[in-house]
C-alpha cells in the first residue's frame, strides 16, 4: 500500500507539481528580466528625450543669437542701428534677458540694456569661432542662466563679440515635465556636477542652495563607465533609487532620470506576488485534487486489503463497501461474492467436520469401549458357571482392573477436553518424576518387549508444576512411544537443564510420524493410531502450556520420534523445603 501511495505521490510530483514550479520559476525570472529592461528603458527614453530637448533648446537659442550676429556683422551699421537691432531682438526672443555687443577690447558697443550693460566680456580673447557657452549661473531671482558668446569677424573694426544672457528657466520646465511612474523625476547637473534643475519639488531648495551631486554614483560613474549609465543605488537619505544618466549634447551636462526602486518595480513586485500566489494556489489545488483523487483510488484498495485480512483472520462476515460503477466497485462486489461463497463453504466444511468428528468420536468410543465391554460381558456370562473357580475370579478381577481404568481414562480425556481440570503448582523434582513414571510404565513396556531408559542429570532439577498432570503427560507420551516402537526398539526418558529451563525428552525408535502430519499432531482428534480419539497429544499440549512450558516433536518416518518438553527451571531449594516440610 505504501508503494502505491508513494507511486501516486511521485506521479503527482512529476506530472503536476514539478512543471508548475518550473513554470513559476521561469516566469519569475522572465518577469524580472523584462521589468528591468522595461523600467530602465522607460527612464532611458525619458532621459534621452529630455537631454535632446535641452540640447535642442540651447542649439535653437544659439542659432537665434547667430542670426542676430549675422544682422550685426555684414552691414556697416551705425551704433544706433546696432543698438536698435540688439534691443529689438531681446524683446523678440524672451529667453534672452540681455544682449550686448563688444568690440575686440571688451568695450560695449551696443546693448539691450538702457544704461550700463551687466554683461562683461571675459578675459579670454580672442574667443573661438564656435559659440562659447559659459557655466550655468543661478541668478538672484533663483533662475538659471548662461552667457553665450559669439565671435563676429565683420561687425566692426576689426572684430566684435556678441554676448547674450540666456535664461535657462525652460530647462526647469523640461526637467519638470519628465515624469517616470508616479514620483520618478529628472535632475539636471552641469559639467561640474552642480545641481541646475530638480524635478522633485521637495528638492528644489537644493538648487537654490547651489548644491552639487558629486556624491551621486551617476555623476561619478565607476571607472570605465560612460556618461550614459544605468545604476541602482542608495540615495543619501537611504532611499534606494534606480537612475539613468544621459549626456546633454557635448557640454558635459547630464540629465539623470531617477525613480524610487520600490516604485519602479512596484508593478513587477505585484506581478511577482500574483504569479507566486497563482503558482502556490495551483500547487495547493493540485495537491488537493491529488489527495482527493488519490484517496478515492487508494480507499477501495484499503478496503479490499482490510477485508482480505479479515477473511484471512477468519472473519468471514467482513465485507467491503465501494460505491460507484468503476472497476473498484466491481472488484468489491466480486470480493463480497467470494466472501459469501467462503462463508457458505466454511459452514458446509464445519458441518462436515462436525459430522466427521462426531463419527470419529463415536467410532473411537465404540472401538475403545467395545473391547472392554465385550471382555466384561464375556466374563460376566461365565460368572454363573465359573463363579466358584478361583482362577476365574482372579482373572475376572484382573480384567476388571484393566478394563475399567481404560474406560475411565477415556471418559476423563473427553471430560478434560471439554472442561480442563484446574492445575496446582508445586515444586516438582523432574528426575524423580521421570523415575516414578518409568517404573509405572515398565510393566506395560515389558509386555511389548521394551523397557524405558531414564537419564537424569547429577544435580537436582526442579520445575513448578502439577505432579499428577505432568505424570499423565509423560504417561501419554510413553504409551504412544511404546505403541509405536517394535519389540527390541528403544524408548527413553531424559532430562537436562539448558539455559535456565528444564528440558525433558521422550524418545523412541518407532515408526515415526509422516512429515505432513507433524504440524497437526497436537490438534484435537488427530491420531496416527487405529484406536483412540486422538486426544492424548492435544491434552498433553494443553497441560504443558498451562504450566508455562512448551512441547515440540521431531520425527522421521522409520526412525522414530522425540518429543521435547521445556519448562522454566526453578531453584532446587524448593524441593528441599518441601521435603523438610
Amino acid at each position, binding site marked *: 500500500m505504501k508503494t502505491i501511495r508513494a507511486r501516486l505521490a511521485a506521479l503527482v510530483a512529476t506530472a503536476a507539481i514539478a512543471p508548475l514550479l518550473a513554470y513559476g520559476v521561469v516566469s519569475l525570472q522572465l518577469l524580472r528580466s523584462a521589468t528591468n529592461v522595461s523600467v530602465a528603458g522607460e527612464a532611458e527614453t525619458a532621459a534621452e528625450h529630455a537631454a535632446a530637448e535641452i540640447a535642442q533648446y540651447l542649439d535653437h537659442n544659439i542659432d537665434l543669437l547667430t542670426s542676430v550676429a549675422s544682422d550685426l556683422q555684414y552691414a556697416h551699421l551705425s551704433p544706433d542701428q546696432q543698438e536698435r537691432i540688439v*534691443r529689438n531682438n531681446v524683446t523678440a526672443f524672451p529667453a534672452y534677458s540681455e544682449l550686448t555687443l563688444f568690440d575686440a577690447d571688451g568695450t560695449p558697443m551696443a546693448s539691450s540694456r538702457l544704461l550700463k550693460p551687466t554683461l562683461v566680456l571675459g578675459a579670454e580673447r580672442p574667443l573661438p569661432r564656435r559659440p562659447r557657452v559659459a557655466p550655468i549661473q543661478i541668478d538672484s531671482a533663483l533662475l538659471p542662466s548662461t552667457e553665450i558668446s559669439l565671435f563676429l569677424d565683420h561687425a566692426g573694426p576689426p572684430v566684435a563679440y556678441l554676448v547674450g544672457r540666456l535664461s535657462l528657466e525652460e530647462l526647469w520646465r523640461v526637467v519638470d515635465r519628465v515624469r517616470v511612474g508616479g514620483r520618478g523625476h529628472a535632475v539636471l547637473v552641469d559639467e561640474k556636477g552642480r545641481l541646475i534643475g530638480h524635478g522633485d519639488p521637495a528638492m528644489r*531648495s537644493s538648487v537654490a542652495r547651489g548644491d552639487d551631486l558629486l556624491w551621486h554614483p551617476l555623476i561619478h560613474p565607476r571607472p570605465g563607465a560612460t556618461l550614459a549609465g544605468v545604476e541602482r543605488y542608495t540615495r543619501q537619505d537611504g532611499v534606494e533609487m534606480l537612475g539613468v544618466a544621459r549626456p546633454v549634447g557635448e557640454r558635459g551636462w547630464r540629465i539623470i532620470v531617477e525613480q524610487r526602486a520600490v516604485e519602479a518595480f512596484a508593478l513587477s513586485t505585484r506581478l511577482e506576488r500574483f504569479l507566486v500566489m497563482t503558482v502556490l494556489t495551483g500547487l495547493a489545488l493540485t495537491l488537493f485534487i491529488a489527495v482527493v483523487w488519490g484517496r478515492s483510488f487508494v480507499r477501495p484498495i484499503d478496503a479490499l486489503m482490510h477485508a482480505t485480512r479479515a477473511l484471512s483472520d477468519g472473519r468471514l462476515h467482513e465485507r467491503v463497501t465501494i460505491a460507484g460503477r468503476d472497476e473498484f466497485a466491481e472488484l468489491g462486489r466480486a470480493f463480497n461474492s467470494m466472501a459469501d461463497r467462503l462463508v457458505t463453504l466454511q459452514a458446509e466444511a464445519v458441518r462436515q467436520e462436525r459430522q466427521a468428528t462426531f463419527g470419529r468420536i463415536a467410532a473411537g468410543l465404540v472401538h475403545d469401549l467395545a473391547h472392554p465391554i465385550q471382555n466384561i460381558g464375556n466374563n460376566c456370562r461365565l460368572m454363573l458357571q465359573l463363579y466358584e473357580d478361583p482362577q476365574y475370579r482372579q482373572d475376572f478381577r484382573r480384567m476388571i482392573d484393566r478394563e475399567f481404568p481404560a474406560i475411565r481414562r477415556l471418559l476423563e480425556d473427553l471430560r478434560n477436553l471439554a472442561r480442563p481440570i484446574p492445575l496446582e503448582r508445586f515444586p516438582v523434582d523432574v528426575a524423580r518424576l521421570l523415575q516414578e513414571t518409568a517404573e509405572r510404565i515398565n510393566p506395560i513396556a515389558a509386555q511389548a518387549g521394551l523397557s524405558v531408559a531414564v537419564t537424569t542429570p547429577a544435580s537436582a532439577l526442579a520445575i513448578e508444576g502439577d505432579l499428577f498432570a505432568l505424570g499423565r503427560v509423560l504417561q501419554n507420551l510413553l504409551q504412544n512411544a511404546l505403541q509405536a516402537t517394535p519389540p527390541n526398539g528403544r524408548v527413553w526418558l531424559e532430562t537436562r537443564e539448558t539455559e535456565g529451563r528444564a528440558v525433558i525428552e521422550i524418545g523412541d525408535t518407532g515408526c515415526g510420524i509422516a512429515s505432513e502430519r507433524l504440524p497437526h499432531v497436537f490438534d484435537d482428534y488427530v491420531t496416527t493410531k487405529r484406536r483412540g480419539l486422538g486426544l492424548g497429544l492435544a491434552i498433553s499440549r494443553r497441560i504443558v502450556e498451562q504450566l508455562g512450558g512448551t512441547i515440540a516433536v521431531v520425527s522421521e518416518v522409520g526412525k522414530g520420534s522425540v518429543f521435547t518438553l521445556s519448562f522454566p527451571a526453578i531453584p532446587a531449594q524448593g524441593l528441599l523445603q518441601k521435603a523438610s516440610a
Partner: protein
Amino acid sequence: MLRPIVCTALVCLALAACRPEAGSTPGAGGDQASTVTVAVADPRSSEAGNRSIDVIAGLLSDEGLVGLGRDGRPEARLAERWEVSPDGLTWRFFLRPGLIFQDGEPVTAAAAKAAIAPAPAATESETLPGLRDVLAVEAPGPLELIVRLRKPNALLLESFNFSPIVSLGHAAGAGPFRPDSRTRGKAVLGRFKGYYRGRATVETITIAEYPSQREAWSAMMRGEVDLLHEVAPDAFEFVRESPNAHVASFLRPYVTALAFNAGHPVLGRRDVRRALNLAVDRRAVIDDAIGGRGVAATDHIPPNHWARDASAPVFDFDTAAAAAILDAAGLRRRGGPAPARLTFTCLVLAEPRFERLALLLQRQLQSVDVDMRLEALPLPEFSTRVAAGRFDAFVNELIASTGLGFTYMMWHSNPPGPFLRSGYASANPALDRLRTARTDDETRAAVHALQRTMHDDPPAVFLYWEQRSRAVSRRFTLPPGDDLDILRSVDRWQIVGRGSANGGAP
C-alpha cells in the same frame, strides 16, 4: 518736501493694502504663540531693502480710524461707527471704548484729532484729497470725534486709512504688533495683546533683509524664514511647486502705465493718445513682461472697486485703427533713414523689468511707425523728472490702492499731485464729481464718468495690474481667501497641527 510725502504715501498705501482685515475673526492666542520671520529681498539696493522693512513694520504696527476693504469700501477700525450730517459737511466718529495704544495710553479722540488734522504748513497738493476739505477737527469727548468740512468729500473716510493714529506721548501705534527693535537689516515686532481685534496668533514677527531672492528662498528652505515677502514673477513657477511653502498671490495696488505729458505738442492731443492706446497689445505685454501674471488695465480705477463699471469700453489692440487715427491726425509716415511719424522720449526706471517693458512697448509702437526713444534713469532722478513734468512720456508703476484717493491725486491737475505733473486736466470734472459725491449713486456715477473720460481722452496707456506672490512656510495654515495679500492676515495664521485656541479679547 516732496520726498517725505511720497514716502508717507507709500507707507500709507502699503498699510491700505496689507492691514489686517476688519471684521475678521479675532486671533487666537495662548498656545498658538509663535514667531514668523519675514524675508525681504530687494536686489536693487540695501537701502531699498531697509525701506521695505519699515513699510512692513509700519503696516503691522499701525492702525487707523477707518480701513479700506478690498472693494474700496470703508471698514470700521478704531472707530466703531460714524455719522454724517445731511449736508455732508459734518462727520461724527465714535471710537471703540477701552482701546489702548501699544504704550498703554488710551486711544482717545484727541489722539485721533492730532493724526488727521491737516498740518498747518502743508500745501493742498501735499495733503491727501480726502483731507483737503477739512475745516476743523473737534474732540468733544474722549471717544467722539467731529470732522467739519468746507464741502462734502467722498474720499474722507478713505483718507483715514492712510492716517495711522498714534499715542500723543510716544507715537505708539494701535496695530496688532508692537515694534520691539530695529537694527540695520532687521526689525522685530512683538504681539500687542491690547489689539482691538484680539491678541494675534503669532507672537513675534521678525523682518529680515536678504541680499537676494535666492538667499531668502534658501533660508526659507532651511526653515529659517516663514514668509518670503515677494516672489519674483520669473521665479513664481519654481516656488509654486515647492512642498515647503504656500504661495499666495494678490493684485498689487499699482497700475503699470505708459503715461504721457499732456503738455507735449503731439502727445497732448487726445486722438494721438487714443491711437497709441490702440497700438499696444496689452495681453502680449502682460505675457512677455510679467509672465502672464497680471490683469489688463484700461484706466486707473482699481479693478475690484465697488463703483467700477464693468461694462465700460476698453481699448482693443488694433494697429490698423491706430495707424488710421495717426494718419488722420496728420502724423503720416515719413521717408528717409528715420521714417517714424512720431518720435518722443520715454523715461524708464533703470531696472531690467522696466527696461524690458519699455523695449516691448517700443517694439509694439514701431509697428505703427512711432519711434519711442528710451531714456533710462535711476529712481531718484526719475521721480524728480516725473514729478516736475520734465518728460514726454514715462513707463512706471502708478500708485493706486483699493480706493480712489491716489487716482484723484495722480490725475487731477489742480493742484497737480506730488508724484506726477502731466498737465492732464480732462479728468478734472469727473474727479471733482467723485470728490464731492455724497451718496453711493453719486460716487458710482462719478466713477463711471471717470472711466469714460480715461477712455475717451486717455492720459496714458494703462497696461496692467500686476499679480504678485508671497511664499509662506507650510508650518502655518493660512485663513481662507482668494487674491488676498497674506500679510493682511498674519495675525490669524495658525501653526499646522495645533488646534484653534481662541485667545479672545484683549
